[in-house]
């Protein structure tokens, strides 16, 4: 791309920003766009944050995405970071129309990031934070060896989603004696001011409260945040290892809202990119190109669930129903009509995917989208088993609970009086994958250092998996 093209892109950004904010009332953070080659695009796409620490899983994601791109199978159009100012990446091989669509789409996302209540506590300077983390990680790699760090990361990453999404709230209502034990979040923030020796010499605050002789803190109520619990209470982790867990916990805290609002956010950005593009008064050819792109992004795929499609349709429907409420809706709910736009904006502020679907996925939408429930029958055929809209909706919502992961809590950090870890799977009708569970238990053992137990349910009967460092048992 040549300077002239960059200049034109700048003009386009200004124009689109204008339409988005003045005409449609979007309210994003300022955005810095960066034009990059595909390798960088896929890199940022796989790491999710520029400058993040290294791990082979990122390499794997990178390889997969890049391969899909190289073979013309799929293309990432946009990568945008939740930060202030926000950063967004444009593929240097994009056509001007593609870029315009991406820019409009990005503004939708950034508006969402800024205004959704679920994002209100996210760290808007996460890019810097991630870079600091990466530096510390590579210092640890240097000091302890790359393999050692990689193995630790493998173990922590296996449970990284099992954090408490309400972490922010919980800490604010922490009781006084807990105040002194500052969560990892602030730990190490100023580490770069000290030399490495000073850091390791300095005692981590939680260590003041975990006495080897004293029994581990008793649990008043089960703890869902496995990462935090293990980080704080593991009998065997060294300080630097707890620091690694703290960093990962912090990064996951940052990503949680994005995981909770994927459908909404994509739907939101798609709605606005389509409306903004219409306002730009494009020449017919360009508009046709855009229409093709748009339909590619927002189309339903048979047998799958396209979040762009789902979110887009629901927001459209909300606007329609609040612009033109039915007679009984006017009466029962006092809807006046003409409030579509307002309602959409309110929804994007206060809902997350689960409440969004529960409240706004209607019977008509389920029919129109032809949603269904399917499962594996007789071990051979994936068969549609349910089409009643309420059941379909409920199943969808249920599948999204806890990011689609089984709900697992620590119920005892001192099981058998022997500092063993006892985890409980809150069974709600769906069995866990046993092979994966065993492999993950091995990782948990690595972090905890004593026997670990996982209680779950298989075939309606409780089953307890156990790993003692060398053998798996169950009963």
């Amino acid at each position: 791309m040549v300077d002239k093209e960059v200049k034109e892109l700048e003009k386009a950004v200004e124009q689109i920003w204008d339409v988005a904010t003045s005409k449609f009332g979007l309210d994003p953070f300022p955005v810095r766009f960066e034009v990059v080659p595909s390798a960088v695009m896929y890199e940022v796409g796989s790491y999710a944050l520029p400058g993040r620490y290294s791990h082979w899983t990122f390499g794997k994601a990178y390889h997969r995405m890049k391969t899909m791109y190289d073979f013309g199978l799929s293309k990432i159009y946009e990568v945008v970071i939740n930060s202030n100012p926000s950063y967004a990446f444009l593929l240097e091989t994009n056509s001007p129309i593609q870029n315009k669509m991406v820019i409009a789409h990005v503004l939708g996302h950034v508006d969402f990031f800024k205004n959704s209540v679920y994002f209100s506590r996210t760290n808007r300077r996460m890019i810097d934070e991630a870079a600091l983390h990466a530096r510390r990680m590579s210092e640890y790699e240097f000091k302890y060896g790359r393999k050692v760090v990689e193995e630790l990361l493998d173990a922590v990453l296996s449970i990284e989603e099992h954090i408490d999404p309400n972490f922010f709230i919980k800490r604010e209502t922490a009781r006084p004696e807990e105040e002194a034990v500052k969560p990892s979040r602030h730990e190490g923030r100023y580490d770069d001011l000290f030399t490495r020796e000073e850091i390791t010499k300095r005692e981590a605050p939680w260590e003041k409260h975990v006495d080897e002789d004293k029994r581990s803190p008793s649990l008043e109520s089960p703890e869902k945040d496995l990462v935090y619990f293990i980080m704080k209470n593991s009998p065997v982790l060294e300080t630097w290892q707890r620091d690694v867990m703290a960093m990962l916990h912090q990064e996951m805290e940052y990503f949680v809202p994005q995981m909770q609002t994927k459908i909404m956010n994509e739907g939101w950005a798609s709605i606005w990119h389509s409306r903004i593009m219409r306002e730009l008064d494009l020449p017919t050819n360009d508009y046709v190109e855009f229409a093709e792109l748009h339909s590619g992004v927002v189309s339903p795929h048979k047998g799958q669930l396209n979040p762009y499609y789902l979110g887009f349709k629901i927001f459209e429907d909300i606007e329609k129903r609040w612009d033109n409420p039915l007679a009984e809706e006017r009466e029962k709910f006092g809807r006046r009509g003409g409030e579509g736009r307002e309602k959409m904006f309110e929804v994007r502020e206060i809902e997350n995917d689960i409440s969004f679907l529960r409240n706004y996925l209607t019977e008509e939408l389920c029919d129109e989208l032809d949603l269904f429930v399917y499962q594996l029958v007789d071990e051979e055929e994936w068969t549609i088993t349910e089409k009643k809209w309420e059941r379909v909706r409920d199943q969808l919502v249920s599948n999204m609970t806890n990011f689609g992961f089984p709900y697992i809590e620590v119920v005892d950090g001192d099981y058998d009086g022997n500092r063993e870890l006892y985890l409980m799977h809150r069974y709600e009708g769906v069995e866990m994958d046993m092979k994966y569970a065993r492999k993950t238990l091995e990782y948990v053992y690595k972090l905890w250092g004593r026997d670990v137990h996982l209680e779950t349910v298989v075939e309606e009967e409780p089953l307890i998996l156990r790993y003692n460092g060398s053998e798996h048992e169950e009963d």
Partner: protein
Amino acid sequence: MSVQRNDWSLQRKGQIDQDRHKERVREAIKKNLGSIVSNESIILSDGKRVVKVPIRSLDEYKFRYDYRKKKHVATGDGNTKVGDVIAREGEPGQGPGHGPGAGDQPGQEYYEAEVDIDEIAKLIFEDLHLPYLEDKAKQAVESTKTKFTEIRRSGILSNLDKRRSLIENIKRTARETGSAELGRFKKEDLRYKTWQEQMTYESNAVVIAMMDVSGSMGEFKKYIARSFYFWMVRFLKTKYDHVKIVFISHHTEAKEVTEQQFFTQGESGGTVVSSAYRLALDIIGRLYPPKDWNIYPFHFSDGDNYYSDNDEAVRLADELIAMCNLFGYGEIGEEGASSYRRSSGALLSIFKDRLKDQERFVGVRIDDKEDVYPALKDFFGKRGEQA
């Protein structure tokens, strides 16, 4: 608000981490022979040399739901109704955990590595060796091969070694005139290739592959048997010059079939195992005298034999063992059965209890694709060792 374009040409982070990943792939292949061994892409590869294989240890392990037991939600094309089948397991591109498409799941995908089947074979066979390779292998067949192994100064013109003759000529003229040239041929320059008769001994093995095709042997079980035979035949071919395979499928009756039929025949009927053994003994009697052949009968079944046939089955199995190198029996369980659900009273335990010559009998139980490789090791590992 700004738009920037910087120089990323030195950016290599993605590439570097990708290399980290490639290393993991290599290690993982070695550690994962168990699942690679039974992978569809290889077993159904029909002779391709490089195949894509999903590697599980590069799966990122998490606590997660069993994909196959979950209820999923997706959109259709507008005409769906309850009872529609949208995809089948076992189809190319599908595998356990891989339903029709990731819809409402956190993205779980297998990593696919490209592997060369021969390399995998080498890794797998490293640990395997041939049990009870008898002397009869050495006496089996005498065949003569002619090899041109000598050079002489006399012979027939059609066996003239032109190159050497030219060289001799140049050498001689160099000796006599001081300059190396070609010319003025004399009889003594000529060299001839001569042959020798060489006796080679070829070792012969015959594998009698038997498969239960009764009603209870579904796709999965047939596939397991097939995976096993795929590697077994490949392995035997590296050890023996000639490996013949006899395919017998049976339900209440046994029949000799082609390889194609063996692996694809539908299943029906009850199970009378002795019928297969009887046919095997018959074929051996007619075509493969034990004094000339190393015989390896293998039988795959799900263990559910007709009760009153068990005695006869044991008796015939004893007979087979008496004239064979090794009798192998594989019992295939339901897919996904965990260890605490093993059924008792099935053929495997009967064989283990009642066969006379336990040394030459190997029985294994396979519940899952991952068990195929350990089963191979059991059959072909060193005697006295368990895999």
